[in-house]
């Protein structure tokens, strides 16, 4: 590989569609979340640079490692999750910018990498030797078991529907040729609804902020984190807030890069914020029942309809 090639790849991961770009969009999205929540509660809300200030501050603060914690794992976990999100964001953006390029990501790789931030939260929380963090980690684990099944089924509904294309670039190209997935039948709409419900659960906001539950668990797995590792977790969350809507848009609703994509993005964010502000937190068993009951049934109906060609 020549040097210019290498530099291009580094630039792709670190600056343009990768880290810097996604982090900026993600931090702005998390500000949008806080501002809209504030307006819904008749407050003024924070200024636009709020999330940037949070991260800048955390980078300068002391990093405390609690006595008796597994130091390497405790400090390493946030960065593993962070790296996974950076890679996912690069793959996703590249798939929509250059569907036929050499950088074509695979749907399955993205689905796997999306697990990693949650795993990092679980591992970091368990390593921090704090009862609240351990409880939060165990709840995160149960929540993950709950929401992933329906989401995976809904992702594969699309694969059934488009005739077995599992690469993201292929999916984008397919939609450019024959219209966005969402317009291709009832099964895709059902899959989209299931995927929409997955977003707040994955972000652990809204009625699904069960692992962090600040009035019972302090802040769950993050209780012992401070300084730079906490900043890494906050950035990971903010970037996920950008990555998940972009993923949904890529697989469900791309035709080409158009203002519609931005509208879709804002609509998905507004949906998440509205759900968050109008629903009280579920108990972990209620969340499990919800995802393994109605949501799972819905997603199975979707995949059956898709295999019937609807």
């Amino acid at each position, binding site marked *: 590989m020549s040097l210019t090639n290498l530099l291009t790849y580094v630039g792709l991961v670190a600056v343009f569609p990768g880290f810097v770009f996604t982090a900026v969009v993600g931090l702005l999205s998390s500000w949008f979340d806080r501002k809209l929540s504030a307006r819904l509660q008749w407050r003024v809300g*924070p200024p636009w*640079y709020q999330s940037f200030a949070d991260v800048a501050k955390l*980078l300068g603060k002391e990093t405390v490692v609690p006595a008796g914690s597994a130091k390497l794992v405790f400090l390493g976990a946030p960065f593993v999750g962070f790296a996974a999100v950076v890679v996912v964001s690069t793959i996703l953006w590249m798939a929509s910018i250059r569907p036929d390029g050499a950088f074509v990501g695979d749907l399955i790789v993205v689905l796997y990498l999306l697990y990693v931030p949650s795993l990092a939260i679980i591992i970091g929380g368990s390593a921090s030797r704090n009862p609240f963090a351990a409880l939060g980690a165990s709840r995160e684990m149960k929540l993950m078991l709950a929401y992933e099944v329906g989401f995976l089924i809904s992702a594969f509904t699309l694969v059934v529907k488009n005739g077995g294309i599992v690469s993201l670039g292929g999916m984008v190209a397919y939609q450019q040729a024959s219209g966005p997935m969402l317009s291709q039948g009832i099964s895709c709409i059902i899959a989209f609804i299931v995927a929409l419900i997955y977003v707040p659960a994955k972000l652990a906001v809204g009625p699904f902020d069960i692992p962090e539950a600040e009035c019972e668990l302090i802040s769950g797995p993050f209780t012992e984190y401070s300084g730079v590792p906490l900043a890494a977790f906050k950035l990971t969350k903010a970037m996920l807030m950008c990555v998940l809507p972009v993923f949904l848009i890529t697989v469900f609703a791309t035709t080409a890069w158009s203002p519609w994509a931005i509208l879709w993005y804002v609509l998905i964010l507004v949906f998440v914020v509205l759900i968050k502000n109008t629903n009280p937190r579920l108990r972990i068993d209620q969340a499990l029942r919800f995802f393994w009951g109605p949501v799972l049934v819905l997603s199975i109906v979707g995949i059956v309809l898709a295999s019937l060609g609807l």
Partner: protein
Amino acid sequence: MEENERKLSKLSRWGLKKSPWAFHLNTGSCNNCDIEILDVLTPKYDAERFGIVLVGSPRHADVLLVTGIVTMQTYPRLLHVYEQTAKPCLVVAIGACACSGGIFDGSYHMVGPLDKIIPVDVYIPGCPPRPEAIIDGVVKGLAKL
């Protein structure tokens, strides 16, 4: 405690001023000051305009809002929380009790006032202080950083 003098980069200093996360610690107050702190977070005063957020863990805190006279019961806990807080942090004594002992001054169970135990950056007197006074105090304290 010398950690509190930690050197901060310009960027982090700016961040600290724009996003002070507060941890609320009651060291034996009559609960009235605590209610006034919660008032600051209500839609009427909306402290999130300044980036002030109430956090549950002292590890995340930049501002310790301490109320009460520091009783014998709470004294070790106060020390624990102060040590757990990631530095640099701002310690704010809220109410006459935390500033000087207030009406409980001289009680048999009093270890405080607060500045005998940990370094205090801002004193907000009043029994209890008004929410405006609390916001004003925190903002003045941040200007000192």
